[in-house]
């Protein structure tokens, strides 16, 4: 068991996933056919031996609550726990709805844990990281805080508004900025921090004192001179699901065989909730390639370069290309779909053609009948 309390943060102000977030936070939305976004960070924690996890939620928590239980994430049923913490104070304006406000209102729960360290991770990123290794590094380095980052060469179009780090030769973070898309190459913060619990509490209190709209990353930036803030480089795929386009792109990126198997394998399973759906039936005459598919589907039509969720029905003559189809969707005969994100339970039957672009994928709402 790793001596750290896991805290999963609420998404910051810049996360605006058009459409999807009308129904649930991005962390609770379906990804890669059979997962929820939050399965990745939760599995990172449990695979790293962190069995006490506090999950912060804000708006529309139904989907998250329904999905979360410790038995699904291989958490010790006696010694471990996942708690869902709700920032109880009503807020007059969304700008007051910061992670600091949520963390501060739940401080007493963090005190209950006797783990000496805190690992705080975001719920709107997708990456695979062994937190135990990162914690070992943190302890050895003598840092007060260690922050995870990714070397990115697409910072002009992705990771916008995320924090960037300037790092000295001792891997200490000297300057923090926001990524405004000016440069291709940036060290992007993955908003994942390790520190002692005492320092964590101190920083949250301090932030609350400075400003009511402060976030954790603001107070970190304030303390770059006074604290030893180190960095830890993440290797492998990482995506920030802050927009519909980013969600779409991450789905398409991870779909590639190598990426998928690097992120999901026997050594690093991604836990999720079972739905007891049967395997997928590919009917005679169906055509499919370059796609990942969840269980329980009936594919009669043509599917190319897609991510297909559980229990999706695609009827004869339908052609679905370059799209993300979430679970329980019905696509009727001869419908043509290209570069779309179709949310759960949608029924597409009368309109015969739906088309978006890679830059601006077309979103079809949850349960919409078209």
């Amino acid at each position, binding site marked *: 068991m790793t001596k750290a309390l896991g805290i999963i943060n609420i998404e910051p102000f810049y996360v605006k996933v058009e459409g999807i977030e009308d129904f649930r936070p991005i962390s609770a939305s379906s990804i*890669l*056919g*059979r997962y929820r976004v939050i399965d990745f960070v939760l599995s990172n924690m449990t695979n790293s031996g962190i069995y006490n996890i506090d999950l912060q939620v804000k708006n529309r928590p139904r989907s998250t609550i329904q999905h979360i239980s410790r*038995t699904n994430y291989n958490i010790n049923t006696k010694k471990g726990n996942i708690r869902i913490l709700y920032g109880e104070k009503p807020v007059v304006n969304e700008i007051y709805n910061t992670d600091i406000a949520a963390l501060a209102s739940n401080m007493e729960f963090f005190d209950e844990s006797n783990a000496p360290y805190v690992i705080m991770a975001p719920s709107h990123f997708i990456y695979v990281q062994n937190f135990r290794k990162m914690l070992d590094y943190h302890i050895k380095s003598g840092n007060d805080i260690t922050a995870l980052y990714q070397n990115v060469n697409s910072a002009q179009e992705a990771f916008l508004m995320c924090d960037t780090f300037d790092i000295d030769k001792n891997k200490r973070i000297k300057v923090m900025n926001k990524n405004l898309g000016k440069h291709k190459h940036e060290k992007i913060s993955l908003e994942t921090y390790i520190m002692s619990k005492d320092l964590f509490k101190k920083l949250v209190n301090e932030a609350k004192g400075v400003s009511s709209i402060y976030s954790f990353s603001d107070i970190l930036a304030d303390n770059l001179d006074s604290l030893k803030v180190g960095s830890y480089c993440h290797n492998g795929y990482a995506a920030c699901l802050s927009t519909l386009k980013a969600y779409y792109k991450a789905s398409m990126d991870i*779909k590639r*065989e190598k990426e*998928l*198997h690097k992120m*999901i394998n*026997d050594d690093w*399973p*991604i*836990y999720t909730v*079972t739905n*007891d*759906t*049967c*395997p*997928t*039936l*590919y*009917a*005679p*005459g*169906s*055509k*499919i*390639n*370059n*796609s*990942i*598919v*969840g*269980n*329980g589907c*009936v594919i009669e039509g043509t599917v190319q370069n897609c991510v297909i969720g559980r229990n999706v029905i695609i009827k004869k003559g339908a052609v679905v290309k370059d799209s993300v189809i979430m679970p329980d969707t019905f696509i009727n005969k001869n419908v043509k779909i290209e570069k779309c994100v179709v949310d759960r339970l949608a029924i597409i039957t009368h309109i015969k053609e739906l088309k978006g672009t890679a830059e601006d994928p077309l979103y079809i709402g949850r349960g919409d009948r078209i």
Partner: protein
Amino acid sequence: MNTNNMVAMILAGGRGSRLFDLTKTEAKPAVHFGGKYRIIDFTLSNCANSNISTVGVLLQYESVLLSSYVSNSSYWGLDMKGGGVYALSPREKDESNLSVYKGTADAITQNIDFLDNAEAEYVLILSGDHIYKMNYEKMLEAHISANAEATIAVMEVPKKEASRFGIMNCDENDQIIEFEEKPANPKSNLASMGVYIFNYKTLRRFLKEDEKNHDSSHDFGKDIIPAFLANNLKLLAYRFKGYWKDVGTVESLWEANMDLLDDNSKLDLFDPNWKIYTGDTLAGPQLIGSKAKIDNAYITQGCVVDGEIKHSVLFTNSVVQEGAKIVDSVLMNDVKVGKNVRLYKCIVVDGVKIPDGMTFGSKNSKEVLLVTKKLVSEVE
């Protein structure tokens, strides 16, 4: 949830020797089926869906894996307080030495204490190696309203096959008047499915009698049912219509898998009102590659397909590489098929790796080929 006072006892101790390598190290009910299931998932899910809360699974042959598997009551939602799935292997007792289960009836006799403790009013006897979906609660209703001492589920089989089964001869009210085990000249085509409901008190008495009879083979079909009939007790035949298959041979296991590809098959695993539950795996979603060609297939989690699949079933984590062609075949769990391999009408056993370029089976073969590790190494 309403549960009834019926306890299910699943006979799962058979060797299944006609499945050869598939049952070399695990019991037949544990054999994988239909992509993601084990055969016993069907009876266990039927129990769960029929609101039965206590299930005993009688184990004997190669029981380690099956015992640990069925003990996960939560897989089937059978983990409510006061219920559960109990793995029952032969055991030494205060009043008797360790003894194997000598027959289907003896397996129950040796667990009379279990049924007493469960305060069973009715006992449902099942086989763990049949594939079907059946509502046992409806059968119990028929049993109660007919005021029967025992009810036996039957199904119509083609006349010419009837001599392979235990055949029930009934009167016009479906009351059983005669039972014939594998008759040479069957008088009816109502075959026993090996599904029995008994009033426990009566069954208990007959089992105790049977235990003392040294000439008995301690078998339900051969001894207990004839004894009920000889005592003029009321035995009801309960007619079942729908898919039912005993997957005792390589052929029948292959057929049952192929049935899943048939649009008109009566075995509907998509029905959300009667789900078949199973132990979930952590495998990722299935990945269909850019070179894949799939024409009628049943594929599950963790599979990676880059070859051509025609009329075949792929189980968890099986991999088919580029240029391979799989026709009318079943790839069981963790099978790896190399490049340009050809498979026709095969069942490839769990975990077998087929190197590039090999061919097994032939297009017009009548027989199903069981591809084992040994067979592959012989060809190599």
